């Protein structure tokens, strides 16, 4: 994957001012952005997904310009074709596992039916061994199952890149190790480019093909 990011953003919250200034380029399939919490990693990832608009700069993914302030280009999140895995998964609490996975496959004004049948839904239920919980609501699932549903939901519309925000932080340590191995295998199998942000050195060890360090809103390039 080719990713180019060169953005600046001033965030204000009450009296506090936070300056985000990130500049990096990578051709790696596995980019890990590493830094303490509050370093601005999530904001950076949101900018790539189109959920945060930078004040200035440019973002390009796989040769496609997603944002360019100078040229007034700002592709909506809907059209960026990226998958975003939220830290606490953000599963839709009113929809069952099947509906959550099918959510992005149906673009209109109505949610998928509780018994929705689609090739992609069948595939992901089988791939993540979720068939027996297909009719359950997110709050009835275990932590690992929730993460699998979130991944399946994000990947079902066949996105061009996978963005992961602290994907293992919500899991207990034993499960964390297993889910890391699962994601590792999945990424290799799909060969989908991914950007993972984390404060956990273990994540860096497992996924860090190209590691970038972020500190106090600034991202500087660093080779591994």
């Amino acid at each position, binding site marked *: 994957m080719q990713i180019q990011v060169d953005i600046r953003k001033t965030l204000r919250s009450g009296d506090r001012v936070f300056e985000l200034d990130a500049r990096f380029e990578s051709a790696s399939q596995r980019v890990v952005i590493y830094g303490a919490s509050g370093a601005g990693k999530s904001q950076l990832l949101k900018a790539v997904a189109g959920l945060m608009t930078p004040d200035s700069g440019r973002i390009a993914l796989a040769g496609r310009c997603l944002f360019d302030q100078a040229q007034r280009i700002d592709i909506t999140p*809907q059209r960026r074709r990226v998958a975003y895995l939220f830290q606490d*998964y953000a599963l839709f609490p009113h929809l069952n596992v099947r509906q959550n996975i099918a959510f992005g496959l149906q673009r209109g*004004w*109505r*949610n998928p039916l509780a018994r929705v049948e689609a090739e992609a839904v069948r595939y992901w239920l089988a791939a993540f061994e979720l068939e027996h919980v297909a009719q359950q609501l997110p709050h009835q699932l275990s932590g690992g199952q929730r993460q699998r549903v979130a991944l399946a939901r994000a990947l079902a*519309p066949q996105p061009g890149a996978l963005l992961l925000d602290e994907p293992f932080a919500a899991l207990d340590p034993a499960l964390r190790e297993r889910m890391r191995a699962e994601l590792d295998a999945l990424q290799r199998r799909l060969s989908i480019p991914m950007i993972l942000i984390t404060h956990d050195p273990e994540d860096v060890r497992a996924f860090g093909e190209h590691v970038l360090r972020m500190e106090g809103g600034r991202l500087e390039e660093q080779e591994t």
Partner: protein
Amino acid sequence: MHSFFSDPAWIALRLSLKVACWATLLALIFGMAFGYLLARKRFAGRELLDAVLTLPMVMPPTVLGYYLLVIIGREGPVGAWLQHHFGINLIFTWQAAVMAAAVVAFPLVLKGARAAFETVDTQLEQAAKVLGVSSFGVFLRVTLPLAWRGVLGGTLLAFARSMGEFGATLMVAGSIPGKTQTLSIAVYEAVQAGQDDTANLLVIITSVVCITVLVLANKLTPNRHPEG
């Protein structure tokens, strides 16, 4: 003995229900739109707008009725425009009663909707957007399903309030039996005319309708949905 359905009490009840239904629908549409705006968009003067939109809840209905008269009356900007282009005169029609009730009931939907929308995690809406669903689709598929209890609770209160509207309605729609004389106005007229039997009947009908609506509203208001 005459049929119940030609009874003035029945006619007044039917008119009240018709006026309240239309008023609630208007209050629901505008209340949801502004509730969403106040819950989700950051802009200067947001809390001032909330205060202004809540005014109808605290102002005397007669004052609201006067404002409405100024706006939709023959000399008012909207009234004159309607008269000139469509030959429509709203004053002393049941539609004017609808407008009066809608204005008075609107803040109840607004408050309920804003509070309900604010309980919905914005991250869920972001997740839906990244999955390719349009903003309006996100509202219909994520925000509203998670907030509907609060919205409905406010809507039922708005309906009850519309049913009981008196002051503003009297100012703009008057008290024309069978045309603009709603239940609450009919009660006043009956008492003025010393018709105690009619007044008693009307009061009982109003109470039953309002209590039913309030019980429903209380059942639905606690915003409980399965947590994810």
